[in-house]
């Protein structure tokens, strides 16, 4: 093998080794950090284990928001208008959090079936509905447009 060939091979081996380390690290990190998304109906049907980190999308049920006077605790109900999930959150809600508004919550179910939300996401654009909320309403057949239009990819 000529010297420059060997050098080229060395460089290629180096790149390949770097890439495989990176791919391994990436796949490991990916497998650790996937948050699955569920609709309120799926939660009500018991598809989710307590303690599993998930996301739930839905609408904030009108009249369900109770915020404590002496602390930052907020309780509300996320719904797809078929089934409800009770949400518990301690913290400040985003600006656009309102009753009847689409939201996405991140967290896990506790043993009592209450969803302990570590993060509540509401959108900054009122006309924008996140794919999660839309999917939840579509699955329940309660999408405001009526028609079932899952986002195609």
């Amino acid at each position: 093998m000529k010297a420059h060939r060997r050098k080229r091979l060395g460089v290629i081996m180096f790149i390949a080794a770097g890439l495989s380390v990176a791919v391994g690290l990436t796949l490991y990190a990916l497998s650790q950090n996937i948050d699955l998304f569920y609709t309120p109906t799926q939660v009500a049907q018991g598809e989710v284990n307590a303690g599993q980190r998930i996301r739930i999308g839905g609408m904030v049920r009108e009249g369900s928001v109770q915020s404590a006077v002496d602390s930052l605790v907020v309780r509300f109900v996320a719904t797809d208008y078929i089934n409800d999930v009770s949400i518990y959150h301690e913290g400040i809600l985003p600006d656009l959090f309102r009753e009847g508004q689409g939201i996405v919550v991140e967290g896990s179910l506790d043993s009592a079936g209450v969803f302990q939300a570590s993060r509540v996401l509401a959108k900054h654009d009122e006309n924008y509905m996140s794919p999660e909320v839309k999917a939840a309403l579509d699955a329940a057949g309660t999408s405001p447009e009526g028609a079932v239009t899952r986002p195609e990819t």
Partner: protein
Amino acid sequence: MIPELGSFSLILALCLSALLGVLPIAGAHFNNQVWISMARPLTAGVFVFLGLAISALAYAFVTDDFSVSFVAQHSNTLLPMRYKFTAVWGGHEGSFLLWTFMLAGWMLLVGVFSKTVPAEFVARVLGVLGILIFSYILFMLSTSNPFDRIVPLPPADGADLNSALQDIGFILHPPTLYMGYVGFSVVFAFAIAALLSGRMDAAWARWSRPWANVAWAILTVGIALGSWWAYYELGWGGWWAWDPVENPPMITWLLGTALIHSLAVTEKRGMFKSWTVLLAILAFSGSLLGTFITRSGLLTSVHAFASDPSRGFFILGILGISIGGSLLLFALRAPLMKGSFGFEHTSREFFLLVNNVILVVSAASIFLGTLFPMVYQAFTDDLISIGPPYFNTIFVPLMMLLFVFVGVGPLSRWKRTSSAYLVAQLSKVLFASLVIGLVIPLIVLAEFSLAATVTLILASWIVFAISKDIGNKIVNKRSKVDGLKALGLSYYGMVLAHIGIAVMLIGAALTSYFSEERSVLLRLGESVNLGGYVFTLKGSERIEGPNYVGDEAELTVVKGDELLTVLYPQRRLYVASGTPSTEMAIDAGFLRDLFVTLGEEKGAGAWSMTLYVKPFVRWIWLGAILMALGGTLASADKRYRRLRVKAAGKSGVRSDALAAPELQAAS
């Protein structure tokens, strides 16, 4: 009438760009001088008509023409004038017009500042950009015309600009980001022109380099502005969230960083040619991907525009054709490029290769994490999200590895550097960094902190290595000042950008590890202590702005016995749209920020709020500014200008013939 003129200008720009996309490239191919000479006038025409179009839209905003649908959705009679003007990019249609106009601006600059480049090469560059801008204008006219009217009944008043956008950050961030993004189209066009003409040599790299550096510098500023804006506007005290829309600029930036380093090797040593071309294609693809993700509405993000699927398909089409086409061209032409591997394992070429591999791998893993939810959904029909921990797990170790090489690279020499030399050079640097990294955190924090130690070791490693390199360069000069003067602007650009990395590293790491935050409920007169700072709620009152009403709280911050500052966080309700918005109160400082976001009123005079103490957070943006200055300095190097003057003196002579000996001297 004016909006129709805007539409008409768009159509004219479309026609001119169609000609621009065909004639100059065909002219260069068939050696037709007339067609080649059409490139610059056609570019100017496209620029003028897009300029007219965007002016017409601005005029519609300023005159409150709510019969134009886009204006009605994004403005209001009460909106302050500066936001009426900038609401032009407050939504999908207008911001795409701005994007397209920016591209036309870059094209005009290419036409003006490429007098030394052979005419037929410029014709190909502008032709490629012409095809690109043609597809953008076609997209605008067919799916998202900003001049569409509401007929027959226009609303009496507009729906107002999204309240989160009514801010200086909105005035600055989108245009800067777009300008940086679109700048990579120019570098892409240079690469494609090189593939078309079959001349991928040092001259081509030298023509592209200033453009790549400037685009990279502007993109750096654009991303930093976005981070700064998110920091104080979104109210969660963060400066980077790995949001699906933040990621493509980051991917583009990482690939762009790899590109400007790879271009250096191509220019100075004539190597890595096909790799450089591939990077130019990839960086450009990153910018298109950003457009696609933002405008297709497929991913959940704070940036996403409300959108319909037809737009997503159209952009996907542009994306597929341009990336697929350029990669096909690359596959056909790349084998013609003769590569050489004349360098050793400890040469500068090798360290720049390492830099490129790390940067490309980090860009690829961010790309994977960003698109994985979409792919996953396509195959399983399940919706998932990938959280920030994924990105941090990958990005942080890769960057730490990269920073080690940022120290080594500048001290190494082209072709061959003996290991003994490197060890001799770097052992003192390593020793000094270890001392700094171990001692300073112990003195300041009075305890051992792994995070602070590692951060400071890496940051001082970068800075000391650069200082050592400067020292080496002037040590034999008779006068140190003359020695410093003799170093080129591009060298100083490199120094500045690398110091910027060290500064940003300190900011990012220390903020992440040592920030404190707490959500509290404060009654009138109550205090809370956070990290030694005592925040006291002194009162709250109603406020009224031009287009909003709200509340403002007053908090004093005391440290020891000293009153540091009084903070006034606000909570606003924008009247026209009915959207609430929180306005943070920030006391910015070189060493720390104090930061309060107001929640809601609970009972009389009691407010929920989140308090933050964020050490060194400003260093993140300071580092970005240094990097951008570095990129700008490098592109202003007299090497590029000198060649221009010489080549201009002998017009018609190929400038690379002139340049070759010069280059040897410079490197």
